[in-house]
């Protein structure tokens, strides 16, 4: 167990430092091994539209993995809490991970990344409406961070899709796409 944790931490640190690790390595390194904690049942339309350029559930789940831009978190306390939350989540302790992120939020209440991560964790726990609300809250602090706004809109789109709000999902997908384009 310890070895696994150390391995995770190693990968994490590498990712956070933005050094040698290539994107594929990241994807292999931080595997979500325990999928059983994810209770979201994919709805038919989730798979039924492979031709659509829209985001999918997997896109949202992939957001739970650390990205190099996390290194941009300047506050060391927040960064260490985000790292702790990642480790907790990878060990299937998502409730603890949420508690840890809420600690980070007390340090930086307006950090959109923390709100975003909370949204992703709630999504994984199938708490869909909270996931969308937290994503919206993240966006209210995201300002110019188009990349993050795009991700949040993807979460909102997924939630709307899974709760049967098809037009709402479409417009959310559009907004995600717009932010993605302007982010490029």
């Amino acid at each position, binding site marked *: 167990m310890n070895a696994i944790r150390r391995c995770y931490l190693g990968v994490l640190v590498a990712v956070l430092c933005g050094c040698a690790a290539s994107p594929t390595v990241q994807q292999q390194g931080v595997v979500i091994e325990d999928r059983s904690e994810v209770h979201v049942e994919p709805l038919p339309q989730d798979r039924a539209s492979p031709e659509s350029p829209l985001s999918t559930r997997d896109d949202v789940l992939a957001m739970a993995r650390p990205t190099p831009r996390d290194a941009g978190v300047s*506050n*060391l*306390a927040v*960064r*260490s*809490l985000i790292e*702790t939350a990642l480790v*907790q989540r990878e060990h299937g302790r998502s*409730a*603890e991970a*949420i*508690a*840890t992120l*809420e*600690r980070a*939020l*007390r*340090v930086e*209440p*307006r950090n959109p990344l923390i709100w975003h991560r*909370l949204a992703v964790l709630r999504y994984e726990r199938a708490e869909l409406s*909270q996931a969308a*609300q*937290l994503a*919206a*809250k993240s966006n*209210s*602090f995201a*300002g110019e961070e188009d990349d993050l706004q795009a991700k949040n809109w993807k979460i909102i789109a997924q939630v709307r899709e899974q709760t049967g709000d098809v037009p709402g999902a479409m417009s959310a997908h559009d907004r995600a796409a717009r932010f993605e384009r302007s982010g490029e």
Partner: protein
Amino acid sequence: MELLGCEQCSYVSVLLVTFFSMAKKRLQKGKSRKRRSPEREKEKNGHISALGRRLGVNAVLFLALVAILYVLYLDSVIRYEFEGKRWALPAHVYARPLELFPGMHLTAEQLIDELTLLGYRANLVGGRPGSYSPGEDEVRIISRPFNFWDSDEQSLFFRARFRHKRLTQLYNLRERAELPLVRLDPYRFATISPSHHEDRVLVQGDRLPSLLVKALIAVEDRQFYGHHGLDARGIARALWANIKAMGVVQGGSTLTQQLIKNYFLSRDRTISRKLKEAAMALLIELHYDKGEILEAYCNEVYLGQDGRRAIHGFGLAARFFFGAPLEELRLPDLALLVGLVKGPSYFDPRRHPERARKRRDQVLTLLAEQDVITASEARQASEAPLGVTPRGGGSSRFPAFLGLVRSQIKQDYREEDLRSEGLQVFTTLDPLAQFSAERALSGRLAQLDSGGDSDPLQGAVVVTNTGNGEVLAVVGDRKPHMAGFNRALVAERQVGSLIKPAVYLTALAHGQYTLLSPVDDGPLSVEVGSGEPWRPRNFDQQHHDLVPLYRGLAESLNVATVRLGLDLGVKKVINTLRELGIKRELPPYPSLFLGAVELTPLEVTQMYQTLAGGGFVTPLRAIRAVMSADGQPLHRYALEVRQTVDPLAVYLTNVALQEVVRSGTARRLSDSLSSGLGVAGKTGTTNELRDSWFAGFVGDRLAVVWVGRDNNAPSGLTGAGGAMGVWADTMAHIDLRPLALMQPADIEWVWVDAKTFQASTQRCADAIKLPFVTGTAPADVTDCGANIGAASINKTVDWIKGILE
């Protein structure tokens, strides 16, 4: 028999066998005696003696049965007590843990305040957790380990450095590395205890300091590990001592007997009670081993009284007398506690420090005599001061906050569970904010009236974290320790102008209004049913003609607000209030626009929380998590957000609320608080100055204050004259971040002229800059209110008049 354990069955059968064999022997004895009796007598009494014999046997059997039943009864009583007392634990309620991180606003003094509250000792000697030493611009700390809901914190030896009222560095002195974050243990501020006012801090057997155990045995029961509940030698010794002294000077009770005495707390010294006690002592030793008995004893022994609260057990006594956990106590402290067993009230170290000291030193001498400690250790310890804290720690210090915790936890837990399961309740209470609010309320009200009237000024304060809805402080009485009427939660008072932001928010969200829209503040008469028409008046009895919308809120103009509300419709405003988080039924009358509705300070807080949260409702929470006594997570109260109001409209409303403080009814606030904070706030005053309110927020903190009288008599205070001062004092001692409103994407700031309702330029003297939703800023430009705009002013006025007519 099913109810009895196997152990008890065998035990009962042993008893039965014993009693039956005794009865049989009696019978045989009787027979042999009879054999020696004369034949004549036998003939004469044959009949009777057979009967008597049978009766005798039956009587013996009957008595044996009664004895067995009685012993069984005692056994069940003692087992019930032993098991029950082991588990009946009050819930422990903790404040938020203080999280330290570099860059945070915290002074060394504030940190030391927190450490003092936690019972840390200002002495690092011995290197024990729960101690610190202050230095120049730094504090060295050995923190306590603590198991939190989400992870466990280890004890750390670290240094915190300070500069310019900030914590600048955390350094791990053992591992020689910087620390990003340290979470201290939380302050236990209350217990929810059983109705008989007992409190307890359970200490498990293996966590009992060995010195305490040794001292206890040396002083109270030297043969503890050798006897079976009773100590004949001890009794003899005590008897001899008592005979010599011609009175009761020494008890021969073993720890086991004392435990039983503590269970039943009977003070009478009758022989029958002593016998019962002895029987129970034997029984308890049959069932439980010495370790269990010692553990029960240490958690049960009565050691003091705190008002109605009985102090049972060494764990609680350590908190009560020294403000620290038992494992942190040193030899002199432990000797004091052991000495207290003999007479908790006679040797009370707070009331009779001299007696307590003598008793402690007596114990130390005894320990040295019995080689538990060395003579030099005893000498050194007897030189130490008593070290007792001035007042009992751990009692419920913040009754109003606890009231909120109780009301929220009741939704998930039964009262019995709270009282008996030893739950650990982790709350959001911030002691620093709580103290600040308490001092602010009692201090200001003392300036306003002496408090001596039959109906003095009263008040309530609620402080929250704007980011996550956590309640940081609740004060429900000018005497914060009074646990009676919790005004913050239950006082329903007219809110007056505090409601106005809801009217303006409705206008900005649903109407075709901007912050610059002209609103008529001229005389108004509203038809209400069949009676006299309602003529709302402004506080200063003055009327203004057209005012820009934001001035209506900033100056809290009643007439303009009612006119605006009538234009929107009362239903829409009620809907907005609902979206802001007000749950109760609201009266659908125009008087609602001026706050003719009764709300509690907590409800008002929820409403302003939504404004501070940028249009997201965040339910106010006083509890973060609940854990079982053994550290298992039971329940977590996660952060919830729900967007209910258009963020653009909330943004504009909040700018207007900042204008209230910058230039409106709350402008005097800048006398006492730094104007750089950008406070957004609102005053509230009700008819005849009955209620004085202030609600306001900065970057991370929101506070709502109410001041008034319980019998609803006039307080003589406006919102700015009463509650606002309390608000300012509350915030003055809380570390605040300035309010920088999050500007949504579709907002643009434009220079405007408030007299002509047109766009202007920065160089004009009267120009001010206001935010507009993109595309709604005025198109016409005035040249500093001069000629070129005149035509359009008239046009605007005509247009508005047209609407109003």
